[in-house]
C-alpha cells in the first residue's frame, strides 16, 4: 500500500480476530490439546506492519503466529487444521500452533522465547547478500528482550547493517511476572544503546503503526540497517488460554479451593521467614491475581481506536464484517466436519 487504506487494515484485523476466536472455540471444545497462545490484542501491530510487506520479505514469529499468518495470506484451512493437529494442516499437523512454517511466505515461528531475533537476522542477511531490497521482520514480546540471543541479534543487525525491523509487542507481562520488575531500561532505550534507531508507540493504534512503518521501510530497503518499534498492547486472555492468574478471576471458587489449603499451611509452617513477611508474600501473590484483571477489564482493544475512522461509512464496515463472517462460518463448518471425522484433537 502506498497510501493508507483503512478498510484494508480493518479487514485484516477483523479477519485475524475472528479466526483466532474460532481457534479459541476449538480449544474450549478440547479439539486443540496443550497450550494455545493467541495474538488477540496485537492485531494493530501485525496489520500496520504486514500490510506493507512485499514478496520476498521474511517474517520471524514467536509463539503467537496465527494472526500474522492470517494477514500474510496463508491458507486459512491449513492454518487452523495445523492448530488442531490434522494431517491437512500447514505442517501436516506435526508442528502445532507454536511451530508454524510457510516457506512460500517466508514465515517461520518458534516456541523458544527470543529466537525470532536471530531468525530475522538470518533472513535479512540473505536479502542483503542477494541485494534483493527485501527486509525481515522479527516479532517478539518485551520479555524476550532479556534473552541473550535477542540482544545479540540486535547488535549483529547493527554491526552488519541488516535490514531487520524489530517489533517488540510490549504487554508488560512475562506470563505472571511484571516485566518492569525484571528489566533494566526500556525496550527503546536498549535498542538505542545498540546504536539502532527506533520509536515507542501505541501498538493498539493501527494508523500509528502503519505510519511509522511506512516511513522507515523505504529507507531500510534502500540503505539497509535495522529499526526498532516498541509497541504497547494488551493480551485480554493473558499469556495463553487457561492463563493461571486469570483462572482465579474467572472461577475463584475452584481455584482458591485448590490453593488455599497449601497457602495457609505455608503461612503457618513452623520454619520459614517471619509471619508478617509471609503474609506480605501472600499479599503480593493475591495482588498479582487482582492485577491480571486489568488486561481483561480495561482491554485496550485495537478495534476501539479504529471506530472514529470507520464511523463515516457504517455500511461499508458491516459489509466487510458480513463477508468475513460468512467466509469464516463456511470454513469452520468444513473444519469441524474434518475434525469430527478424524478425531484428531485432544478429546478422544
Amino acid at each position, binding site marked *: 500500500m502506498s497510501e493508507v487504506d483503512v478498510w484494508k487494515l480493518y479487514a485484516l484485523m477483523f479477519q485475524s480476530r475472528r479466526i483466532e476466536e474460532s481457534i479459541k472455540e476449538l480449544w474450549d471444545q478440547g479439539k486443540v490439546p*496443550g497450550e494455545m497462545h493467541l495474538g488477540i490484542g496485537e492485531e494493530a501491530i501485525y496489520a500496520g506492519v504486514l500490510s506493507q510487506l512485499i514478496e520476498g520479505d521474511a517474517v520471524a514469529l514467536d509463539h503467537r503466529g496465527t494472526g500474522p499468518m492470517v494477514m500474510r495470506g496463508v491458507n486459512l484451512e491449513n492454518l487452523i487444521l495445523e492448530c488442531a*493437529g490434522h494431517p491437512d494442516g500447514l505442517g501436516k499437523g506435526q*508442528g502445532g*500452533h507454536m511451530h508454524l512454517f510457510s516457506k512460500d511466505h517466508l514465515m517461520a515461528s518458534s516456541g523458544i522465547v527470543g529466537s525470532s531475533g536471530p531468525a530475522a537476522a538470518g533472513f535479512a542477511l540473505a536479502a542483503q547478500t542477494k541485494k534483493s531490497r527485501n527486509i525481515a521482520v522479527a516479532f517478539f514480546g518485551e520479555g524476550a528482550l532479556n*534473552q*541473550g540471543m535477542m540482544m545479540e541479534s540486535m547488535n549483529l543487525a547493527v554491526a552488519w547493517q541488516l535490514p531487520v525491523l524489530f517489533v517488540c509487542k510490549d504487554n508488560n507481562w512475562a506470563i505472571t511476572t511484571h516485566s518492569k520488575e525484571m*528489566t533494566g531500561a526500556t525496550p527503546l532505550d536498549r535498542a538505542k544503546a545498540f546504536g539502532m534507531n527506533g520509536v515507542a508507540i501505541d501498538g493498539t493504534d493501527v494508523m500509528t503503526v502503519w505510519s511509522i512503518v511506512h516511513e522507515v521501510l523505504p529507507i531500510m530497503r534502500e540503505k539497509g540497517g535495522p529499526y526498532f518499534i516498541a509497541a504497547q498492547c494488551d493480551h485480554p486472555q493473558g499469556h495463553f488460554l487457561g492463563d493461571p492468574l486469570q483462572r482465579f478471576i474467572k472461577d475463584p471458587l475452584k481455584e482458591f479451593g485448590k490453593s488455599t489449603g497449601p*497457602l495457609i499451611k*505455608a503461612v503457618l509452617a513452623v520454619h520459614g521467614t517471619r509471619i508478617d513477611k509471609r503474609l506480605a508474600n501472600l499479599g503480593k501473590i493475591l495482588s498479582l491475581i487482582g492485577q491480571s484483571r486489568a488486561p481483561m477489564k480495561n482491554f485496550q482493544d485495537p478495534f476501539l481506536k479504529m471506530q472514529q475512522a470507520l464511523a463515516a461509512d457504517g455500511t461499508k464496515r458491516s459489509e466487510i464484517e458480513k463477508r468475513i463472517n460468512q467466509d469464516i462460518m463456511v470454513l469452520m463448518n468444513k473444519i469441524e466436519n474434518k475434525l469430527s471425522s478424524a478425531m484428531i484433537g485432544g478429546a478422544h
Partner: protein
Amino acid sequence: MKTMKFGEAIERALAFAMERDKNIIIIGEDVHTLRANLYTQFGRERVRSTPISESAFLGAGVTAAMAGLHPVVEIMLVDFTAVCFDAILNHAAKVNFFSGGSWTVPLVIRASCGGGYGDGGQHEQCLWGIFAHIPGVSVAVPSNPADAGGLMLAALNADHPVIYLDHKMLNEAWLDYMGYGGRSNVKFDVPKDGIQGQIPDNWEPLPIGQAKICREGRDVTLISLGISVHRCISAAEELQKQNISTEVIDLRWVRPLDKKAIISSVQKTGVLVVVDEDYENCGLSGEISAICNEANLQFRFGRICTQTTIPFARASEDETLPNVHRIINMVQKLLKKDKVV
C-alpha cells in the same frame, strides 16, 4: 504413610530441605506463582523470580553454588536448557575437575520434561541422554511421588550438580498448566500410580545411582524410567496373561547408571528391552546395551524409544512416544527369536 500427588511431593521435599538448610534457594522464571507456597513461606530472597534470561541465571546459579549456596535453578521446560547449555556443559560439570577436586558445585537444575499432552516438538522432549553424556553431573528422573520427593532430597544432599527432570504427565501442576489449561474435556493417558501415591513418613534421600526393581520376572527385563515405567508395568501385566514373566526396572538415575541392577537382571532373563522416551540414537538404550555387552552377557535386545521429532498431532504423538502395545510387540518379537547360545 500419607498420599500425595507428584508435584506436591516435590514441593514438600523442597520445603522440608529448605527448612533445614538456609543455603537452599530457588531461582527461576515465574517461581513466585509456580512455587507460590514456598514463596509465601520463605520469601523473595529464597524463592527468586527471574527475567527470561536462562543463560544468566543458570550461569549465576553455578557460581552461587561455588560460593556456598545450594541453588535449585528451575528451567521451566528442559527444552529451554538449549539456550543455557554452556552453564551446564562447560561450567557446572567441570569446575570440580578443573579445581583439582577442591571446589564443589552443589547445584540442582530442575526442569519439566516429557510429552503426551499435545504441546509439540519444542516443549515435550526428555533430553536426559544429552545431560548424562557429560562427566561431572548426575541425572535423576522420578516415576512416582515417593521417588520424586526422595530424589529431590538426594539432589539437595549431593555436593555436585544434579539435573532433576520431572515428567509433565506425572506432575499434576504442570499437566494442568500446559495440558488441560483448566479444561475437563481433554483426556491424556495419565498413569494413576504415577501422578499420586504413598509417601514414607520419614523423608530420606534416595541413594544416588540406585535403581529399583518394580516387578520381578524370569523371562524378560524391561528397563525404563519416568512415565515409561508405568507403560512397562501395564505391558508386563498384559504379558503375564500370555505366561510371560516380566521384570521391570525403574532406573531412577540416568547418570550414574545402576550397572549392577541392569546386569543381574539381564543375566537372569537373557532378554532385554529398554523403554526410553528420550531419543533413540546415541542414547540411554545404546548405553545399557553396551553395559551388558561389556559384562559379556548373552542376551536378546530390543528398544522402544522416540525416533523422530515429537509430532504435535495427538494420535501420531502417542505412536511416537513409547506405549504399551509397542512394548508388548517388541517382547513378543524377541521371544520368538531363537535363543542365543
